[in-house]
């Protein structure tokens, strides 16, 4: 009993961990299923079929391509615009600071369904047909705030004395930015961009409002499949994404710890 009491937090913690991870295990396991019917919900038979024929289902790989394309363009655009805003907020005094902060905060506090539908009313009112471009516009919009917040934290944590030291050591403003400021803020920008990419890649609700039948992203494809029948290939893609991202994070961690902890 005493043992249980002492380790209660650990036991509950691990159980919650299991709850968080269980669906991922299911996704991985069921990528090797050979389902009996159209839906891949019941285990039937072990098979590599889906893995050897990933693009075998019509439309899926096209939607994947579109999602990647939108994700990359949206995250890079948001990264550039967001980094500029983050520097303005972290480095300068200006009027309307409170208003700016509010405008950055609001998109993060607004339900997706409201953002998606309001954008749709704008596009309808202006007579703009929905499709790839409107999806991109929407994605950049909701990614921006997240990039700004991530990069701003990094800019704010930057010791101003480092830049002063650079200027003390004969670097002018541009050189200081290129040699000191940017390299030090870069991890924040990278984190913000990755976050933006994953948000864009995974978004369904906002996308669904601003897409057209000819611009089906991967989440929209999965949504459709959930009604018509889920091909195993969806799980293959899910597994590849999961393991790939995990590998990137682990490699990053290893590199980081080898480079020793950064205090600043």
């Amino acid at each position: 009993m005493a043992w249980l009491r002492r380790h209660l937090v650990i036991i509950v913690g691990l159980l919650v961990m299991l709850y968080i991870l269980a669906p991922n295990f299911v996704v991985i396991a069921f990528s090797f299923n050979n389902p009996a019917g159209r839906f891949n919900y019941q285990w039937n038979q072990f098979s590599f079929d889906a893995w050897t024929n990933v693009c075998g289902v019509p439309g899926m790989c096209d939607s994947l391509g579109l999602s990647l394309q939108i994700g990359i363009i949206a995250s890079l655009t948001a990264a550039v615009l967001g980094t500029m805003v983050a520097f303005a907020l972290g480095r300068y005094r200006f009027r309307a600071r409170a208003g700016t902060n509010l405008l950055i905060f609001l998109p993060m506090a607004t339900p997706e369904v409201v953002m998606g539908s309001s954008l749709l009313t704008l596009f309808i009112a202006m007579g703009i047909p929905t499709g790839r471009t409107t999806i991109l516009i929407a994605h950049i919009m909701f990614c921006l705030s997240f990039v700004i917040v991530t990069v701003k934290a990094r800019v704010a944590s930057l010791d101003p004395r480092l830049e002063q030291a650079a200027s003390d050591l004969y670097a002018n403003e541009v050189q200081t930015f290129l040699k000191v400021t940017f390299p030090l803020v870069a991890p924040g920008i990278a984190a913000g961009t990755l976050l933006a990419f994953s948000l864009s890649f995974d978004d369904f609700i906002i996308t669904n409002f601003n897409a057209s039948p000819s611009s089906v992203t991967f989440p929209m494809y999965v949504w459709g499949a959930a009604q018509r029948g889920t091909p195993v290939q969806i799980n293959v893609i899910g597994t590849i994404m999961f393991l790939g991202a995990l590998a990137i994070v682990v490699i990053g961690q290893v590199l980081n710890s080898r480079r020793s902890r950064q205090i600043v």
Partner: protein
Amino acid sequence: MADQSAGDLILRQVTKSYESFTAVDNIDLVIPRGSFFALLGPSGCGKTTTLRMVAGLEQPTAGTISIGDRDITSTKAYQRNVNTVFQNYALFPHLDILDNVAFGLRQRKVKDWKAKAMEALELVELTQVARKKPTQLSGGMQQRVALARAVVNRPDVLLLDEPLGALDLKLRRQMQIELKRIQQEVGLTFVHVTHDQEEAMTMADTIAVMNGGRLQQVGDPGTLYEKPESTFAANFLGQSNLLSATVKGVVDDIAQLNVHGTAMTVPASLLPEGSTEIWLGIRPEKVRILGGADDAGGDSEGLNTLSGKVTDVSFLGVATQYLVATTWGRELTVVQQNDGAPRAVLGSNVRLAWLPVNSFALDASQDADAGADIGEDA
């Protein structure tokens, strides 16, 4: 003289004011080339602001800063041949030690930057960590890297902003000696900002004491300690006993004083001009304990004497510190070497004595407690 002043750092009527207060108030200072100069004062006294103005990180509101006959007031930090060892060092965390040290050299496109940087690392005995990152080094090592990064550029003036503040006491002592050695070796002008009076006295040739944005006194450590010119300097550098006294008259260059009814003397040359009400100052270690109050021994000839009662005895190791209450209730601090002589007993009545030349006199219009209790920490 002319060639000597070629590289002097000269501040003329330098003022830095912000909206609500003046950080640096009309400072005039000449720091001779090749000297080890300390700017000493409590935090908020304007010493760091002064340093930052010399570095070019802050613009003075008025006044000029020049090195030799070159006015550098309006040049930018990166255009000045002045380098800084920052508080907490400000080493670039993304660059290794060698790249940190070589930063200034490469910025100025010095050809053999690598050899020069290694040479600087040799000076601070850190060649073995050239390829490590700053965060992998201890505080003391980082401090030396910061020094090497500044020294390697052979600046006209090297500024040190509380460079030892983050180190523990033992390491600080070690680095004080190390810094002095390096300064003598490279022969650059060092301007050292600190709030630690001991550090300033240990290292500097000349100390400028600052308070409230103003210069209080500039001089070599000995003069500053023995003959402070303000109660602030008297209390901030070491401890002082200040007794209020009235000047009765001057006979043969000796001023006759009345200290709460006791007659004392002080050389007239030490009197502040035109004052009759003064603070008579005496350092604790200059006071001797003669024995019981009744023991009016003949060896007190020519000394200033006072009787009092011992209210506290603290054993310090090399010395013993006493608190002695005078008849009018003022407590004097007295420090006696533990040279084997018997120690005074708590509660006993004693007589205190000192040589008049060992005392100093300050105008009584100043606050007797100015600068007390802000020396050590912060």
